[in-house]
């Protein structure tokens, strides 16, 4: 994972978000407040606009800057959570280096853990973590098994998709949808959907 891969990923993520405008918007309208697409779009755009100033930096510095930028750009619940993810990842990449798939996996897990701590949430609460935790676990497992990048990306896409779909039948206990009780059932969590889209977009870059 070099810096240019991160920047390419940012482009791919932006595309994925923009292409799912109406889906992301209606998910947050249904069980939230309708701003999730706008928030994600604003965040993605800010990162893409930063590319010139990021290109020359080391991967951990890039990840950290992305985190800081998201923190001051997105707002809402998704802002500090996604920011935490990148800052958590940056820390591990800085420590473990950015050469092995195992270090990527542990950086990803660290990012997800930071989200978990910040949001005080866990699996099954109908949030983005229902995508991120299974993906982190599988990433770690596959990396330990020395799976190929291609195998890993295929597997993670599937897991992200399953995690995203799993939120549909849950009652939310964290986030804005927690007020809804039974009425949240039948709706996919918007943050879970955007995380799944982002994971898919990045995995698609790995062939």
């Amino acid at each position, binding site marked *: 994972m070099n810096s240019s891969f991160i920047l390419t990923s940012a482009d791919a993520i932006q595309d994925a978000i923009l292409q799912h405008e109406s889906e992301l918007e209606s998910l947050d309208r249904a069980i939230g407040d309708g701003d999730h697409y706008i928030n994600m779009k604003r965040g993605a755009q800010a990162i893409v606009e930063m590319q010139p100033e990021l290109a020359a930096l080391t991967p951990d510095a890039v990840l950290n800057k992305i985190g800081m930028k998201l*923190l001051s750009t997105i707002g809402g619940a998704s802002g500090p959570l996604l920011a935490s993810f990148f800052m958590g990842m940056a820390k591990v990449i800085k420590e473990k280096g950015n050469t092995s798939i195992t270090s990527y996996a542990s950086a990803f897990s660290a990012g997800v853990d930071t989200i978990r701590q910040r949001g005080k949430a866990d699996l099954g609460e109908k949030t983005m973590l229902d995508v991120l935790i299974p993906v982190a676990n599988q990433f770690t497992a596959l990396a330990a098994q020395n799976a190929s990048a291609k195998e890993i990306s295929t597997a993670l896409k599937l897991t992200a998709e399953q995690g995203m779909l799993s939120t549909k039948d849950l009652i939310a206990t964290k986030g804005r949808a927690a007020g809804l009780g039974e009425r949240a059932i039948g709706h996919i969590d918007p943050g879970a959907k955007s995380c799944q889209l982002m994971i898919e977009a990045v995995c698609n870059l790995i062939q």
Partner: protein
Amino acid sequence: MKKFINKTDDILTESLSGFALAHHDLVSLNLNPNYLTRKQKATSKVAIISGGGSGHEPLHAGYIGYGMLDAACPGHVFTSPTPDQMLAAAEAVHADKGILFIVKNYAGDVMNFEMAAEMLPFESATVLTSDDCAVINSTYTTGRRGVAGTVIVEKCVGSLAETGADLQACKALGDKVNSRIASMGVALTSCTVPAAGRPTFDIDDTELEMGVGIHGEPGRRRETMREADTIVTDVVTAILDALKPASGSEALLLINGFGATPLMELYLIYNTATRLFNEHGIKISRSLVGNYTTALDMAGASVTLCLLDDEIKQHWDSPVHTAALRWGA
């Protein structure tokens, strides 16, 4: 969507600029990061900072001024502000006695203010407001939402801070006031987030949303539209269930419009709610009726009851001079 706007991206800046122009004697506006402070910086007091997504005007900028807030951080429409705003605002208004954040209990607001507090070079404390009893509290959830009762918390804490009270005392009063408030709202129409361009939820001409949130979040249930008295009865019952006030309690009653509800209807609700609370032995000795915590252009209203004691009464009655609440000054 028909609104008085130019480009959706510019609404916030243009509206904040208009606010700062109209109230130039009271507030100063900083753009990028966005925050507003009192024109006259206060000295030697706990600095009270609130903030949250925009679209709830006059919350929070309308409550900046003597006896209430020192600064407010407006986020994008319905999106919590970001920590850099709170940090810059805190830097601007810090007056040697620490910072008290007043934050409505939403995951986004809580996390953004929390991160700001962690980065802050000053002592700080946070009062979370959580008066919306539409959300049934449960140990598994993040709890109730902060809605119109926030105004009462900001007023009382702001009053205490003016006396030079310390951070812990201000936080303690905020927590106490919050614990004595319950609110519930009803929507007749949806709001429309400008950037989304269409209503957040669909609602029929024969329906109402009971327990709606101030961002148009779905409430307890969708119901058939009925006459005001039975709607208000349900809301009052929910509030009584939440607060379980002793007969003989004295209270402040706030009837809050969500943005598109005529005053005439708000006063009609006030009339019914007062009668119902009186029937339960509650004496309404303070009132506030109007658009104090809105949800853009939503038609609807919320009822807020705050149980008073001498301390809260004193801080509610004390002088306040802000764009949206003013008395004794």
